[in-house]
């Protein structure tokens, strides 16, 4: 069972969380072009190794946070605060 360290609740089973995908800078909706917006929506880095991604603690504190996880070994290195 994979444990995820929630910054507010401590290490909890991954089943309590929802994976929200890779986190990256979101383009400014007022100035972005259609191509940039669709690239942001669809194109992924999908790295094999360390990845920075968002999780949502749906069955706990119901807050979003950022995790660094190795997608090959599922090892978790660090968690960030709220984003």
């Amino acid at each position, binding site marked *: 069972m994979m444990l995820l360290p929630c910054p507010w609740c401590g290490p909890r089973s991954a089943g309590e969380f929802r994976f929200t995908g890779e986190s990256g800078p979101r383009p400014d909706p007022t100035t972005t072009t259609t191509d940039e917006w669709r690239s942001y929506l669809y194109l*992924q880095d999908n790295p094999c190794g360390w990845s920075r991604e968002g999780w949502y603690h749906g069955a706990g504190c119901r807050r979003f946070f950022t995790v660094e996880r190795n997608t090959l070994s*599922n090892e978790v290195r660090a968690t960030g605060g709220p984003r």
Partner: protein
Amino acid sequence: MVTSTNGAHGQNGNGHRPSRLRDYSAWTLFRRGLDGSDWPRAWHDHDLRSSYDAVIIGGGVHGLATAYYLAKNHGIRNVAVLEKSYIGGGGSGRNTAILRSNYLTPEGVRFYDRSVKLYEHLAADLNFNVMFSQRGHLTLAHNDSSLRTMHWRTEVNKLQGVDSEVIGPDKIKELVPYLDTSERTRYPILGALYHPPGGIIRHDAVVWGYARGADAHGVHIHQKTEVTGIDVEHGRVTGVQTTRGRIATPIVLNATAGWSTLISNMAGVKMPVQTFPLQAAVTEPVKPFLDTVVVSGTLHVYVSQSDRGELVFGASVDPFASYSIRGSLEFTEGIAGHVLELMPPLSKMRLLRQWAGLCDMTPDYSPIMGPTDVEGFYVDVGWGTYGFKAGPVAGEAMAACIADRRPPEIISAFGLDRFLAGRLVGEKGAAAVGH
């Protein structure tokens, strides 16, 4: 587009079969039984040539089928298939071997129906027994919205000439007596989408049959040969770097699953793909009692009984992206509970083993096939949870795409350019779980 089974076979077969492919027959079995001689190797090892007309990355059903149809339908035989491990060791050997064509969109139905038609004649075409068993495929509806989607799918299927109908609990009980169709369950069964042409096949045999067929046509299959780089000069492909040396080639096809992002990145092409593991499991063998494929989208489970008597269970993809193929206890618990909700008499069955394969999910649950911005670099990726059943048609279409330098009509909706153009296919209703 030829839609009749005979027509499909004739179009593909062209009446041409190389004599070396006619090795397996009742007579040769009898003769070799008498003289006790060894069977010849079905495919051969070769030295790596310094150049090929086309290089296919990925020795699974898609890569091998593309090589086979390139050689057979288009006469392009100087082709290498590069596989980093052994052929059929990835998604082709990790799926649950279910075939069907009852999709939701006309593009999807037409495409997968062509694949089922090719599968129906594959054993004769390849002279290799692929053990296709068209036993019927049931997708259960546990709520009004899925029943409504099934009526929708039935109508789309009928328009495309695919045999599908919605049936009620009584008929379901007749087809699968061990299914709990009572109203006492947590998710009562309201009906099902019944798809008689669906079934199961021996997935290893499909890979081996294509490998043998491609090899007989002169294709080189290189196992234990990993691609480490793709050479691109002035926007076009010039070669690939491998662990066994460099190959010069004007055409490279990425036919990998799980690693498709990493291979495309080598050519500088970004992919709208996320890789998720999908777990499956198999029980100890028991006497035959289940002669249809049973799928429940609500319970995230599909069940079939293999020819050896084992029950094969599959689920939807794991809840987060990963390249890890380790099994998890959550999966075992979940699948056991869901199978027992469907078929309570199975409570004493024991699981033999579980495994995982990697699924490259795209935003619209449809594959990415065709050319890219890099000239000569083609992709046949993003096969999510529905890649194995599309192997023959994907091979046939990608071979035509490479030979003619443009995608054939049957895959024109699946191009990589659809994401930036905002033309997504929308197969989600049918492909999110079902097999």
